[in-house]
Structures are given as C-alpha cells and as structure tokens.
C-alpha cells in the first residue's frame, strides 16, 4: 500500500503504524487515510489487530513505530484526554454514577465550558439523537438502543474531529442491531462527523460504511467501498470474509492467463476467472469463490443456458428467509453441497426437498485466487 502524503481534506492519517506485544505483532505496518466526513470501517476477525489500532488512535496504546495525524498534525505524543478524538466503547462505558445529562456534560465540564453553554449543548445533542426526554434518567433506566445513542451523544457534544466506535453493536440482540445499523448511518450522515468503526460483522461494515478496510493478522488486506470488496475481492481472505460464498479448493488444469480450468479436490471441473495477483499457471493450487446469488437455478437443463459451468443437483434443504431465502443443493456425483440464492420469482415457488434441479454460473462470477501457502 502506498504511503499517503499529508493532505488537508483527510481527517485521519495513519502512517506505517506498528504495535508489538512481545514477539507478537498486533499491528504490522498499517497506513491509511480517512476522508473528512466519511464513515470508515475496519473489518476483521477477532484478534486481527483492529482494536489495538483503534486504541492507538484514541491514545490508550503507544505505537512502536509510525505516525498518527489528525488534520495534518501528529497526535502520537498527546495523551488521550488531549486528542481531538472520542471513542464509543464496546460496552459503551456510560458512567453509572451519573445521570444521562451528567454523562453528556462530563466532557464539556472538563473543557471548563460555562454552565449556560453546557446546558444548551446537552439539550441540543439530546435533541439531535432524538432523546430529549431522557436528560434526568439514570443509566440503568435506559434501554440498549437508548444507551447506544447516549454514548454517541456524549462524544458528539464535544464535536470531535473523529469518532471512534469499537463494535458498539456487538452486545445487542440481532433485531436491535439491524435497526441501529440504519440509525447509526443516518446519524453520521446528519452530523457529518468522521466515523471510524471497527467490527467483525461484515454486514455492519457493508451497510454503514463509505470505505471499508479488511484487516487480517495485523495488516490491511484490502481497502475499498463495500461494493468493491463484495464484487472485486483482491484476495481469497476478502472473498471468504466479506459476504457468503461457495468455496472450492482445486488445481489449475489449464489457463489462458485470465480464465482457468480448475479441477476441484472433490472432482468437479470448473471454469473460473483469475482475480488478484499473481498470474496463474498450470498446476497451481487455487481457491474458487462463487456467490450464492450468482448461481442460476432451473428445473431443467435449459435454465442454466449461457453459463460456462453447469451441474445437476438435488434439493437437499430449503432455507426460507423471505428475500434472503436459500436452497442447499447436493451434487449427486460428489456429494458436495452448494448454496444457491432462491429467486423470488414465481416459477420456483413450489420447489421441494428431493427435487432434481440444474445449476449454472458464469466463468467471470467464479473468482479464483492462488491458495494461501
């Protein structure tokens, strides 16, 4: 990844950040830029170093190398309380010994704001997050979603250059999480503050972010828009981590450079398109990824017409989930299961378990990567 030079429209720049714990390198030479007013997510499995990275930006951990700049100025030497950055903690860290109002006023008081100014700003931010009636409530009287918004309000009232969010939805139940994803995105758009959001949930990252960085073993694997990550993953890790995929391992039988004929370990022959570097050659071990929605499903062989890859199968199970319904299809010859998105068109409405079907997908929708050594 190229080292970015200081620019003025970037809120945050991290340059070659390194953090080691003994022999373990938690953050390994990471550089990136977050544009002003954007929603930036760092997506990675637990232990990938994303929390360490965020804590270095917040100031709770000192980097072993590299620089962190906010609006062009290095903040590495500043203690957390003097950085123009605020953090929403994983468990929100609202102060239980204070009321909602006192929680929000805490930071303003530390800035020696006048009593009138504090009152005005607290009221304004409560209005903004839509909870003006909660001012006098104790923290333990709030619902999960309310706590969430108060925690954000507590930071926003300080008008930080950058708001850091450490998986703040992680502890909530699924339904609430779905709703808050949307709310959080709207809130960010409304206030215009730059958000840096870390999560291990790819759906959160995809729904909310302008830019997503996928992190693995201390490094950024790919940075891009959610669409780029989803449709043009550059590594097998990104392809596997972002969105659902059917995955096969195999060996290149023949290749013309961009397309390859691959024989998978369970004996299927597939035509796939190379993605990422380097170029493939015969005999290379590869991983092939095919999105469930890229697979065409038909009751007869004609349905998959025009697809380079075609397979017969039998419906193993139907996973009905409204718009997200899936069909698990078993390939009789190999016994392998393939996940297929169920089109919401009428013709496949009556599909039942045990029915014979035909599958097909285009070569360009089967991306293949050199297998990780």
């Amino acid at each position, binding site marked *: 990844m190229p080292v970015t030079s200081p620019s003025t429209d970037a809120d945050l720049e991290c340059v070659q950040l390194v953090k080691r714990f003994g022999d373990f390198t938690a953050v390994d030479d990471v550089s990136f830029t977050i544009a002003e007013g954007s929603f930036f997510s760092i997506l990675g499995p637990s232990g990938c170093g994303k929390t360490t990275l965020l804590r270095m930006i*917040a*100031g*709770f951990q000192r980097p072993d190398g590299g620089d962190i700049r906010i609006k062009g100025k290095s903040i590495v030497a500043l*203690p*957390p*309380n*003097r950085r123009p*950055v*605020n*953090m929403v*903690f*994983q*468990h929100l*860290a609202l*102060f*239980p*010994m*204070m009321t909602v109002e006192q929680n929000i006023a*805490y*930071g303003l008081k*530390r*800035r020696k704001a006048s009593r009138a100014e504090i009152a005005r700003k607290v009221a304004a931010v409560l209005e903004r997050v839509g909870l003006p009636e909660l001012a006098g409530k104790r923290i333990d009287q709030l619902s999960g979603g309310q706590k969430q918004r108060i925690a954000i309000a*507590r*930071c926003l009232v*300080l008008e930080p250059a950058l708001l850091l969010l450490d998986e703040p939805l992680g502890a909530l139940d699924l339904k609430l999480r779905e709703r808050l994803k949307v709310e959080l995105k709207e809130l960010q758009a409304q206030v215009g503050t730059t958000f840096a959001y870390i999560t291990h949930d790819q759906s959160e990252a995809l729904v909310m972010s302008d830019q997503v960085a996928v992190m693995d073993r201390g490094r950024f694997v790919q940075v891009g828009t959610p669409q780029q990550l989803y449709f043009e993953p550059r590594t097998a890790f990104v392809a596997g981590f972002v969105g659902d995929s059917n995955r096969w391992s195999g060996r290149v039988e023949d290749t013309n450079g961009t397309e390859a004929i691959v024989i998978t370990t369970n004996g299927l022959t597939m035509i796939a398109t190379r993605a990422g570097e380097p170029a493939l050659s015969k005999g290379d071990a590869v991983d092939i990824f095919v999105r469930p929605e890229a697979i065409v499903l038909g009751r007869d062989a004609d349905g998959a017409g025009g697809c380079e890859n075609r397979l017969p199968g039998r419906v193993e199970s139907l996973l009905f989930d409204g718009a997200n319904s899936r069909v698990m299809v078993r390939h009789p010859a190999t016994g392998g299961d393939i996940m297929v998105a169920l089109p919401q068109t009428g013709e496949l409405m009556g599909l039942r378990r045990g029915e014979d079907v035909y599958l097909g997908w285009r070569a360009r929708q089967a991306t293949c990567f050199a297998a990780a050594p």
Partner: protein
Amino acid sequence: MSTPPQIRLGLLLLFAPIVFWLALLVILPHVDMLLISLRVRVAPREYATSLANYAEFFTEPLYWNTFARTAIMSVTATVMTLLIAFPVSYYIAKMVRGRSKTFLFLLCLTPFWVSELVRTFGWMILLRETGIVSSLLLWSGLTDARVELLYNDAAIMVGLVYTSMLFMVVPLVTTLDSLDDSLVEAGYDLGGNSFTVMRHIVIPHAMPGIASGSIVVFMLTLGNYLTPKLLGGKDSLWFTDQIYTQFITRFNWELGSAFGFLLLVLSSAIVWIGLKLSGQTLSATVR
C-alpha cells in the same frame, strides 16, 4: 404459596445456630448490661434503679473528653487508613494482574498471621528510645541523640493505621476490581485528567467500599484496647480503657456498662452522621 413443612423445618435447623449464637452471645449480654447500667450501689449488695451512671458520663468532663478524644482520633485514623489504603488498593485492583496481584494481596494479610499483641510489641521494639528506628537515626547521623518515638499519639496512630489496613484494603480492592477499565478510559477519552477521573469516576464507584471499609476501621479503632494502651503516652486516654478500668480495676460494673452502652450508641450515631454526610446508605455499603 405455602412452604412444605420439611423445608420449613430445614430452614429452622439451618438458622438455629445463628439465632442461638445471636441470642446467647449478643442479645442476652447486652440486655444484662443494660440492666446493670441502670442501677447504682447504695450499700453492700444493695442496688437501686437510677440513671445516675449515664448522668455521670455527661456531667464529668473527664469521661466526655475521653470519649471525644477517642472518637476524634478514631476518625483521624480512619481517614489516614483510607488515604494510605486507597492507592494501595487501586494498585492491587487495577495496575497488577495475575500472580503478583494475589501476592500483593497476601502481603497485606501477613501482619494478621501474628496476634495483635505481638504486632503491637513489634511496634514498641521499633519505636522505643533504645529501639531500632532511634538507633538507625543515631547511627546515620540524622539525629545526635536518641529520640523517643513511643508513648505519644503519633505512635498510637501508627499502630492503629497499621492494624486497620487490611480491613480497608479488602472492601476497596473488591469494589475497585468491579470498576470496568473502559469507564476509566472513557473518563480520559472525554477530556478528563487523572484528578477528574479519580474524583468523578473512580471514587464515586468505590464509594460503597470506602464507606464499608471506613465503618469497619472506625469501629475497630474505637473499640481497640491494646494498641492505645501499649503505645500511648502518659497523657493518652482511650475510652475502651476507661470501660476496662471501670469493669476490672474499679469493680464498677454499673458505670462500665453505662459506658459500654454509650459507646455503642454514640459510635452508631457517628457512623450514621458519616453515612448521611457522604450520601451513602447502610444497605448500599453491605451490598
């Protein structure tokens, strides 16, 4: 919903020892003591009911002053114990992890492996004029004559604080342990410095521990007998010593009982005032 009889019997048996213990060792003696305190000796083996013993306490400045002095010194000792124990507890609860935490905690416990008497004698050996501290000062040339560090109020204070340490450290470590690290980090993140984080986040969180530790230390100190007696000087007075004197050397059980009751009532009142002033409740401190 009614409780099945066998469970009721079980509960009864379960609580019988504690009820028995309370009745026999706490309630009965106190009732007896109350009755004794309400009588005065009129002639050999003849007693009359009277409040004279209580009146004696309020009219004789000596007793009243002794109590006031004891209470003030106990409060001072409590505050000093808190000031010393808080950083220690914070260090144990928040700064160290794993084995060293257990080790430090045990270290606080070690003085309690010997009896209070031995501990107090230890301080006497250290502080007396021909003792270790005085010898060290003389040897190092910091003083040109031996100094007497024993037999004064400062020595009492040292002994009391030392004896009370554990009773403050244990509740403080427990409450500070339960403080989520992210609250402290949030305190800094939102612009607080060490002082404001301590003042607005750590201390309010630790308040129940501070209150319960302080109550225990205050009560232990106020009721301490050996330490003030052995380390104290010729001017030192301690209320429990006064009670002991009334009971044992003066054979004046009546006045001694009255003093005992007054100690109970007045110390409870001081604790109550302390709780009110700090905005705590007793139920919160025992939680």
